[in-house]
């Protein structure tokens, strides 16, 4: 037994050394993605020639608008479901609620709160269905989520283009198309515009902070942090590491995966509400389509991967991605004389960064499989 203890000390030391080494030169490697995008952003901002205050205000607006959506991706990542492209369904739940309260003309923070309440059961149902689908497509959750988003979009269009005004009785000349069937392409949400943002706004040296929205985001961050300190959070993480071992230990794997998906979908629904109240108009058939892609891209740019994501990465990623979003058309225009180039460039970046990180993930997991076998 003596010998054993001696060994332990050595192991301990080695592990500590390992950690130390990692800290030194692993830091750069580990954060390569955010560093790269930070550099791109800095160069881009230089060429965009935007006044700094202007740029910062834009960034604050967009951070407040999008952080919630990006944060909604963290739970499924840690529960081993990968990047949940299915949050598109959550966004739809949010939009359905918004359409309802706009139709009923319930305004202000009351309308917003009601929308949040309405979106909840819808999102729970959507999340539950998504989770069941993911359980049937284990190992293919991401592509299934992506396609599910497209599919649900088709259903959504069917409902709001053809059912509204026919099967679903709705009469409102501002919302419906001139034929009386189908919603207009864009719906004015002036009722809940800035419902959250403008409750309390603070100006600090020319920068505007929508305090309540920021508080909401902070509460969400704390809630996620708290969740992973609880029994449920521990079960998410266990399932995320190994479905098999978690199952053998008596954790109901499928159920936990569904719960994780529901959490994510509900958060996405509320995230979409925050997004819409800030924007003030609903692009009926477009607002939700890119939610999944953009949120995923933001999370990945922050340095997250298919299996690891933190709150910090989500926030950093939102910051970098939306900075890029703001500056790239302007930078494109100033550099190449064409704003569209910049727009396509950011689409390219969003898709590219997802593609690359998925490829890296597949690459690593296949090489890991090899070493485990050995």
């Amino acid at each position, binding site marked *: 037994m003596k010998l*054993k203890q001696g060994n*332990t000390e050595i*192991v301990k030391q080695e592990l500590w050394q390992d950690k130390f080494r990692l800290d030194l030169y692993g830091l750069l490697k580990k954060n390569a993605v955010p560093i790269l995008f930070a550099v791109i952003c800095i160069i881009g901002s230089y060429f965009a020639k935007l006044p700094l205050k202007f740029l910062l205000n834009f960034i604050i607006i967009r951070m407040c608008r999008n952080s919630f959506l990006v944060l909604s991706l963290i739970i499924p990542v840690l529960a081993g479901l990968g990047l949940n492209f299915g949050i598109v369904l959550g966004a739809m739940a949010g939009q359905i609620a918004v359409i309802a309260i706009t139709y009923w003309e319930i305004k202000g923070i009351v309308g917003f709160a009601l929308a949040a309440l309405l979106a909840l059961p819808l999102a729970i149902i959507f999340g539950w269905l998504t989770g069941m689908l993911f359980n049937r497509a284990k190992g293919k959750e991401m592509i299934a989520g992506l396609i599910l988003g497209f599919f649900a979009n088709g259903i959504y269009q069917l409902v709001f283009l053809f059912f509204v005004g026919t099967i679903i009785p709705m009469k409102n000349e501002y919302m419906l198309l001139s034929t009386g069937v189908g919603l207009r392409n864009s719906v004015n949400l002036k009722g809940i515009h800035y419902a959250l943002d403008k409750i309390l706004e603070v100006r600090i040296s020319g920068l505007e902070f929508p305090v309540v929205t920021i508080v909401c985001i902070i509460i969400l961050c704390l809630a996620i942090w708290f969740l992973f300190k*609880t029994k*449920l959070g521990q079960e998410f993480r266990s399932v995320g*590491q190994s479905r098999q*071992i978690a199952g053998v230990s*008596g954790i109901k794997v499928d159920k936990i995966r569904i719960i994780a998906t529901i959490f994510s979908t509900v958060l996405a629904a509320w995230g979409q509400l925050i997004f819409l109240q800030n924007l003030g108009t609903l692009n009926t058939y477009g607002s939700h389509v890119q939610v999944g892609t953009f949120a995923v891209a933001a999370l990945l740019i922050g340095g997250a991967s298919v299996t690891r994501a933190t709150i910090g990465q989500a926030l950093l990623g939102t910051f970098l991605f939306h900075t890029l979003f703001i500056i790239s058309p302007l930078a494109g225009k100033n550099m190449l004389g064409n704003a569209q180039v910049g727009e396509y460039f950011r689409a390219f970046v969003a898709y590219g960064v997802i593609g690359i990180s998925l490829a890296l993930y597949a690459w690593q997991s296949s090489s890991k499989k090899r070493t485990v076998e050995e």
Partner: protein
Amino acid sequence: MDTKFLLQMRNISKEYFGNRVLKEVNLDVKEGEIHALIGENGAGKSTLMNILFGMPVIHSTGGFEGEIFFKGKKVEIKTPKDAMDLEIGMVHQEFMLLPGFSVTENIKLNREKTKHNLISRLFGSKLKSLDFKSMRKDARIALDTLGLSIDEMLPIAGLPVGYMQFVEIARELDKKNIKLLVFDEPTAVLTEVEAETLINTMKMLADKGISILFITHRLEEVLKVSNNITVLRDGEVVSSLPAKDATVEKLAELMVGRKIERVSSKRKRIDELNKKAGNTILKIEGLKVEMPGERVRGVTLEIKKGEIFGLGGLAGQGKIGIANGIMGLYPGEGKIIVNNKEIQLNNTASALKNGLAFVSEDRRGTGLLLDQPIDLNIAITAIQCQNKFLRKSLINLADRRSITNHALKMIEELDIRCTGPHQLVRRLSGGNQQKVCIARALTLEPDILLVSEPTRGIDVGAKKLVLDLLVKLNREKGMTIVITSSELGELRSICDRIAIIYNGKVEGILTPDASDKEFGLLMAGEKSRRREVS
């Protein structure tokens, strides 16, 4: 008998799809004893343990016959949870540890200590906070019981293998009041020193009143640690004896002893072969193969033309790796000489082109295209390696008709039971699938046929047919056959010589009529162990 029995399994029988794997097995474990359960692979040890743990695989295949008594009471164990509730614990052969979790988190996996907080009072106990402080304390106690001083907050990833094993044990100990602990081949992955510590730990646990069921095939360990021994062979208890009455030789004999059917007088044939000595067809020199779980650590063999050569040994000792290494399916190094010509290692095509053919032990995984028809399965390797069945024209178009005709010929020759050459292989029975594999190998017209586990997972009647077929090929076509099998009886019934592989090396070569004891000792690696000592 004044001691009480903790666990009694009475007349346990189990069938898998008509295959009887356990026959009226009785197992009695006393309170506070270390009971060893030994037997070859396929003897039924793991099935018995699956029954004890109520694993779904048992109940989804029709359950079992017999009764289990625990602490004198009859119990029904339908799920692993039932077993856990009875305070039966298991240390798995494969680690059930999450690499990204700390030692503490793994020890307390799904048994985390929690405490209420404001939110959990509102939304239910799932949202209780983890009480890390008390979890750490529990983990520390469990680790200290084992005399393990590692930091309980270290992550599992990066710990040496031996430590992981102890963390597993610590987890079982942490389940309070554990009464029976099953160790499933715990020393298989450990170094000598680690195994020593483990054995001491087991003794210590037994002293605390925990009964231990110890599954292994390392015979020396059994003698060192256990009080009583139960030996399984072919699904039956062949002996149940106190450890003090056992010796390594006796146990080995019990484990492998079989009634052997002699196919022909071996002596004569070996003499015949010896006369033709020098006709070495396959020479293996210093072969090392990196096959997971079946590592080969330097094998040198000479195989004579026209013989049936057997490779035997216990699972995990490397016998399977030899043929796979020769065929280049797993990375290897060394020298392979076929017909005085060295073939390139790690190159399957080169092996196939130089007169070797291989029937894999992994029939469904490596041996067949399950969703393709029989005829394509038989022909495809020959098409790819030898350009057979191709119409010679500008493009190498396959000749469907000759493929089908060849398949028909093979179906008749090997008596493959099927609806026709276009039937999908998946629909065939195990024995017929095996024949398709052999037909594919024969289509290559090899000088040497390597066959691994030819009778694994096929029913008794078909087993004999496959073995007879191999003998026929050898006698009639003069084909040299190297057969790898876990079933020693099978090797002894058809081989001319048998090499026993232990620890990735050749432990010894025997003739089939050598005694059970000799085989047993070689398989248990006693010979090389003694060599080391002396």
